[in-house]
């Protein structure tokens, strides 16, 4: 794209200039049943009470792409590649329409699942990590990633307590197991294994999600206080520059 180096410079100046509170991106990651949505809600309430302007974005929630994915999930019509590519499109649309505009405006963006969800699930479905990771380029790295770690057993118990997992949630498209409960246990074991690898590679902050809700929330507050002082990551310059090139940041 023409003028990208100039736009990278503009991005750096915007996010490192000290005259205003810079936007922060905080991702909550973890397997189903790890309690991250509960923690995300508590965290959001606390941030707002502390005076932050907060925006939440959830996985698979783009108004443009979500209906396309939903209709295909309903009829079990997605191969692992199609599943991956459509979720990548949903993510890209939210990055351009929700996440970067909010960060540019100095808000805190809480992502209930981020691209690591796509990586963990797609690799658990047998896709190549390198291929999937590149789909998400230009990469936008969160300032903080909280990883809610639970065992496959705990995840299964918590998910089953609220109902039977859906076809794709249970990974029945790849396990060939007819019983959704049994399929879920097999699939979530793979997903957790991938998450644990990603946690090491990408330096997630691991939260022991087997602990009490109050203990976890206290830990998150403290980690956020430490983490918000981190400098803006220059790794994000490409993602912001591309967004500026397609008309983002125009006031």
């Amino acid at each position, binding site marked *: 794209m023409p003028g990208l180096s100039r736009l990278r410079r503009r991005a750096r100046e915007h996010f490192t200039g000290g005259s205003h509170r810079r936007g922060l991106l905080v991702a909550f990651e973890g397997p189903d049943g790890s309690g991250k949505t509960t923690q995300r809600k508590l965290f959001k309430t606390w941030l707002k009470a502390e005076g932050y302007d907060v925006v939440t974005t959830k996985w698979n929630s783009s108004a*443009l792409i979500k*209906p396309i994915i939903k209709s295909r999930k309903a009829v079990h019509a997605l191969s692992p590649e199609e599943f991956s590519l459509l979720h990548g*499109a949903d993510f890209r649309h939210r990055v351009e329409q929700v996440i970067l505009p909010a960060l540019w405006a100095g808000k805190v963006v809480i992502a209930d699942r981020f691209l690591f969800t796509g990586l963990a699930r797609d690799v658990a479905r047998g896709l190549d990590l390198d291929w999937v990771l*590149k789909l998400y380029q230009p990469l936008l790295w969160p300032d903080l990633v909280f990883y809610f770690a639970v065992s496959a057993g705990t995840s299964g118990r918590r998910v089953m307590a609220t109902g039977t997992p859906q076809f794709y949630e249970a990974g029945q498209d790849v396990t060939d197991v007819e019983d959704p409960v049994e399929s879920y246990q097999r699939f979530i074991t793979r997903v957790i294994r991938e998450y644990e690898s990603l946690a090491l590679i990408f330096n997630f902050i691991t939260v022991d999600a087997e602990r009490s809700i109050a203990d976890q929330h206290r830990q998150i507050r403290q980690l956020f206080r430490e983490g918000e002082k981190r400098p803006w990551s220059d790794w994000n310059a490409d993602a912001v520059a591309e967004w500026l090139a*397609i008309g983002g940041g125009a006031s």
Partner: protein
Amino acid sequence: MTRRKPALIAVDGLGGAAIAAAARAALASIDRATRGGVSCWDASGVFEELAVAGADAGPPSVRTLLLLYAADLAFRLRWEIRPVLAEGRSVVAAPYVETAVAFGRAAGIDRGWLVNLFRFAPRPTERRFVDRTAVRGGRGGGFVEFGFEQVPKVMLGATRAELVERMTAYLRASARRS
């Protein structure tokens, strides 16, 4: 001369009508006994659904559109292309990979990302290029026309004429390489 061995024939270009005509010609060049069919874009219906989304959903960027094109191509490979080849027949994919790559390159998307995006698509046995720049509006056209209609000008980063020129140059160079 008619083609007898099963083949994947890729037809790429800019205008949807010209691609469709070239696809018919490619199909006619295949021996009747091994003639499969033509696989067109949006067989999965993702773009049809995209076109009816409300304006408040926000427009797609070129990158988002290309991810959807790849998802649609994965669908076409699964249901329309690989099964026909497995039966020992030939199939025409119109458009295939190069049309989307040309659109992405013209809009400034880096080559490495595009190569990775379509890594799952097998190399065609034969490539045909429609060297025609007529690009009509409306959804009845091809993928490029659809892209021009869906992606706002500011997100395309150039005028339509400039993009058509860049895509034509890319496709001509690609035709020379193949």
